[in-house]
């Protein structure tokens, strides 16, 4: 067994192992390292009384303030979660835009301790977006 032959053997084993690891990754694309759950992923029985992060869109016309407590609904077009929050909202917080909320889940109410605005990858001058809205071409798919 020359050293060269031994190296060839180890190369073959390495390649097999690399292939195995690549295959395992490929069959596993979605599913993990979750920074947040979507409302439909959230299982109310399981996550009840635990601290969770929920991400989705703020539902249109759901935002209201009452005695300094902000209330709104997060939705992913399938399920809805009611959120109560006391504190300062980030600048990007808006109805019909993305948001991630961290807090304790009680039934389908979330008592938020933190609200992060998740903003999309679209950048556009303010003047143009106003014009688009006037003309009715405004179709943001987020």
């Amino acid at each position: 067994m020359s050293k060269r032959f031994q190296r060839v053997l180890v190369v073959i084993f390495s390649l097999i192992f690399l292939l195995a690891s690549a295959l395992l990754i490929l069959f596993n694309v979605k599913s993990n390292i979750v920074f947040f759950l979507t409302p439909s992923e959230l299982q109310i029985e399981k996550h009840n009384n635990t601290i969770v992060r929920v991400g989705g869109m703020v539902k249109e016309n759901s935002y209201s303030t009452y005695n300094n407590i902000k209330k709104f609904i997060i939705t992913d077009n399938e399920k809805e979660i009611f959120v109560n929050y006391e504190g300062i909202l980030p600048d990007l917080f808006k109805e019909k835009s993305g948001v991630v909320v961290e807090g304790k889940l009680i039934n389908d109410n979330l008592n938020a301790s933190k609200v992060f605005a998740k903003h999309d990858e679209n950048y556009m001058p303010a003047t143009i977006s106003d014009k688009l809205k006037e003309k009715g071409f405004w179709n943001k798919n987020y």
Partner: protein
Amino acid sequence: MFSFLYNPGKFFIAAEKSHNYIKMTAIYLMIIGILYALVFSPDDYQQGFTVKIMFIHVPAAWLAMFTYALMTIYGILALSFKITFGYIFIKAVAPIGLIFTLMCLITGSIWGKPMWGTWWVWDARLTSVLILGIFYIIIMILNRSFDDIENGEKISTIFVLLGSINLPIIKFSVDWWNTLHQPASISKLASPSIEISLLLPLIVMTIAFKVLFLFLISLRVRAEINIRKQILKE
């Protein structure tokens, strides 16, 4: 023709010749870019004035990754073809990469506080960029903590190659996992999701940063080559 890319002596001469041009282009482009980005570009429809941070954040982030990619390429060259310039390059460039990474992280958190509502979250993108910064620091420490300088260079080069696994993780973290960080805007080649009047200053700033990067490389690599010459003389 391209031998200055891997030959220390030729690199030294080329860098010395082009030094003034690169310096002046970097300065002019920086002035133009900063003026264009900060003063003459419009505000964003969502973010308002805060969008201006993007013009520093995004080029810095790209360069932070680009530096590491370059180091990886030179590391492969150095280890497999015994090109000593690779070691010099890695040793000289790691601090530059660290600075760009820090710039990216700091501007990002300044931007994140008003926009997201937090300075920092442990999502995949932010964490992987932080690890990139840690890798730069480790590479710098490795380069300096061996009695035998050549040994330290080889070991740190091996570490550079090991750490390069982090690059695709940074790049695709926003696509693979749900993160607070938004997906990339530019990489969609067909239709970038940035409007042209915001895209142009970004491009100018990117080029300005690239030239600045080139200038820094030529300075640091030349300094490193000089140190080597000094050692050889002694």
